[in-house]
């Protein structure tokens, strides 16, 4: 049974030896993590190219004949859905979650390795079904990533015949895949921690992934429910969401369905989804800042409590996405209040990150640059969130580029920066080689400054009233010529930033082959994954015996210690106590 292997009673390494069992039908959490990461990156590149095409149309309208209005809406929809679900969720939880959880808590693998393997293959299936949308008659759905009915399944919307079906089926499969993975992450964290690894000794990365998984397990069912019910509306003519509609002169069979019901279900998933992406990023960035500033994380307990508080609050704010759908003013007041309250734990986290940096021994390594960059973009996106959380401010801004700028800053750029930081940080452990630092720094600066060049002007365009979701602006009195120029500049910046990501991929591929060999612990980090006997860790992670944990994850620069870090598995007698610290 799995738990016996995990509890390490008479561990035997059942290391697979054939290529197929080792790298394809693998049950090793590290291989599954890399499979997740490669698939997510691949599908993310598709979404990147889609964003280029969208920006080309917006910056240089009608110059590219490939992009007609239908294609433009299909690009928007697929870009949004891929980035939010198939890239960010899959990479943070399926990728980093899978790789880091067992290593950070001192386990040999996930508790249900077979389920873990199934999780990946279901994820791959969902990606294939999603991408199949590009090759079926009518193309993928163009209903926007929110898929609001009735328009998502009415004729006239791109992909309403088949595209919307592949999209909904793909989402349902993704939810199944996520549930199988999520069961593993939660149970592993609760059950398979090594001796001495109490919950409050876990690195914040694990805390962030843990809470994000719990949110996902409770929120993804809402997506599943709405996908199933919409599929039934589309295929069997039920009326869950579909009101009576006359479409192109014919009366549809539906009557009485409630489109608002879909919006409630969708956003009941959609808002926690923001935190499913953000919480792992919060956790990872905490560890990056602490490690590369050689200083313990400021307010560890507060950081854990804030993660839990954000997780709970994220379930009672969903209707702030629906202010423009119309609602009882008291509801609006309630949801505006909860939305603003969630800023409190989030602000605690930001203060603690800054206080971690305060008087730290900051090493401006590539991961650290990305982590600090994240603080900027996240504060920036968070502050515009405070604007939009208020009903009266949201109503006029909701359909403008201000919202596009807000959510791209807060849940596009910010988590992506952390993702890159995390890849650069753990690259030596995962591959056994160092990346090229110069290329990494170029990648950071182009991405960071480029993101501002793209999204900062969008706030201004939003204030001007430039509407989002429009294929072309045409000649309108309230949009001055300068706005069109700004759109051109944004497009140029987007093309450059996109190209910089190819530089990153090039760096990864080059470093895999030619990178300098990495030592076991190049950053001098305390957490367990850096203390493995082999780099990269072998099957079973820990050799003959599991590590024993004697201290928390943040013993950096302890006065009197021989090194400026004390690994978690170093017994207390070998190092002076930290108790003398104030």
């Amino acid at each position, binding site marked *: 049974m799995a*738990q016996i292997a995990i509890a390490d009673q008479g561990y035997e390494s059942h290391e697979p030896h054939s290529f197929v069992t080792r790298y394809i039908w693998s049950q090793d959490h590290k291989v599954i993590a890399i499979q997740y990461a490669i698939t997510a990156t691949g599908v993310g590149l598709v979404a990147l190219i889609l964003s280029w095409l969208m920006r080309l149309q917006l910056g240089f309208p009608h110059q590219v004949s490939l992009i007609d209005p239908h294609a433009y809406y299909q690009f928007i929809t697929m870009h949004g859905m891929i980035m939010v679900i198939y890239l960010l969720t899959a990479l943070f939880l399926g990728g980093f979650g899978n790789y880091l959880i067992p290593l950070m808590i001192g386990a040999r693998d996930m508790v249900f390795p077979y389920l873990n393997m199934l999780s990946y293959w279901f994820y791959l299936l969902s990606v294939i079904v999603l991408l199949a949308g590009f090759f079926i008659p009518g193309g993928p759905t163009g209903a926007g990533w929110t898929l609001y009915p009735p328009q998502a399944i009415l004729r006239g919307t791109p992909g309403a015949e088949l595209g919307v079906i592949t999209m909904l089926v793909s989402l349902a499969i993704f939810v199944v895949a996520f549930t199988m993975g999520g069961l593993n992450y939660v149970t592993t964290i609760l059950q398979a921690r090594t001796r001495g690894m109490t919950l409050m000794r876990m690195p914040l990365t694990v805390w962030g992934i843990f809470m994000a998984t719990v949110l996902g397990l409770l929120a993804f069912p809402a997506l599943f429910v709405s996908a199933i019910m919409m599929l039934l509306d589309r295929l069997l003519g039920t009326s869950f969401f579909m009101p009576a509609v006359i479409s192109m002169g014919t009366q549809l069979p539906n009557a009485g369905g409630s489109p608002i019901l879909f919006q409630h279900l969708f956003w009941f998933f959609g808002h926690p989804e923001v935190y499913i992406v953000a919480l792992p990023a919060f956790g990872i960035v905490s560890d990056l800042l602490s490690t590369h500033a050689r200083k313990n994380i400021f307010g*560890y307990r507060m950081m854990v409590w804030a993660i839990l508080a954000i997780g709970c609050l994220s379930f009672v704010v969903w209707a702030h996405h629906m202010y423009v759908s119309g609602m009882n003013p008291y509801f609006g007041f309630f949801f505006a209040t909860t939305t603003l309250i969630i800023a409190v734990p989030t602000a605690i986290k930001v203060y603690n990150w800054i206080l971690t940096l305060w008087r730290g021994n900051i090493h401006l390594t590539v991961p650290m640059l990305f982590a600090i960059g994240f603080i900027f973009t996240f504060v920036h996106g968070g502050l515009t969130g405070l604007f939009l959380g208020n009903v009266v401010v949201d109503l006029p801004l909701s359909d403008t580029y201000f919202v596009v700028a807000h959510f791209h800053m807060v849940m596009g750029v910010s988590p992506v920066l952390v993702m890159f930081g995390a890849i650069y940080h753990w690259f030596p452990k995962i591959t056994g080689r160092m990346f090229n630092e110069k290329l990494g720094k170029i990648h950071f600066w182009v991405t960071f400054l480029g993101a501002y060049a793209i999204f900062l002007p969008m706030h201004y365009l939003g204030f001007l009233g430039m509407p989002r979701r429009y294929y072309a602006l045409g000649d309108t009195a309230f949009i001055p010529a300068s706005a069109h120029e700004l759109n051109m500049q944004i497009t140029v910046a987007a093309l450059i930033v996109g190209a910089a990501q190819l530089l990153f991929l090039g760096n990864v591929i080059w470093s895999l082959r030619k990178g300098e060999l990495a030592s076991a612990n190049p950053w001098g980090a305390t957490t367990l994954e850096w203390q493995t006997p082999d780099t990269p860790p072998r099957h079973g992670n820990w050799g003959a015996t599991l590590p024993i944990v*004697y201290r928390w994850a943040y013993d950096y620069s302890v006065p009197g210690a021989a090194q400026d870090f004390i690994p978690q598995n170093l017994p207390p007698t070998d190092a002076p106590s930290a108790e003398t610290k104030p």
Partner: protein
Amino acid sequence: MSIMAMFVPIALAIVLWLALLQKLQAKPWLVQGIAAEPGNSATRYPAKVIGLGVFLAVVTALFTLFAAAYHMRMAVPDWSHLPLPKILWFNTALLALSSIALQWAWSATDRPAPGLIDIRRGLLAGASLALLFVAGQLLAWRQLDANGFFFSCTPASAFFYLFTGLHGLHLVGGLLVLGKTTTKIYRLDLSNRTAAVAPLLLSIKLCAIYWHFLLLIWLAIFALLFLT
């Protein structure tokens, strides 16, 4: 939406309670060594029990959301009451008996020397009753169809087929596992049963928990459909 909003705090409260058991108050930077807390709680519950618990929480979230959708859809004026087939009462009794049979098997595993005969009878009875339940539900579908209510006829009938269909799928998934366990128990050599028994006993326990959950969910669905 109110049902939905209620479920989540409860589920999160359970998670927090689990976490609080492990002392979220701890100041980990002050305490070193491993004496403070055993850390590894794997000895208390097998991982499979925790895994099943988490899975059932996800299923609860799923059904709660469907119930919330049902509740909201009811508020639309075109709603009409669905006359439920009488056979559902009989089916409910079947499922309850099935649950009791599995409980019987479970309690037989708790004895110092597990009563294999009782376990076998309990599992077989539980599985057959569950199969009868599925057949009964299919019959209920036929009856409803004969009365002129198919899937897309009224919103209430659509929800009826959706609820019973999903619950049926959930049950069939459980039946596959139960079938596997039952086969293994039957293949077990009565004379030499020390080593192979432990994982099977756990698996019986998991099946019983799953079945009680199935019953609870069904009772909730039935009550919801019956009372509205």
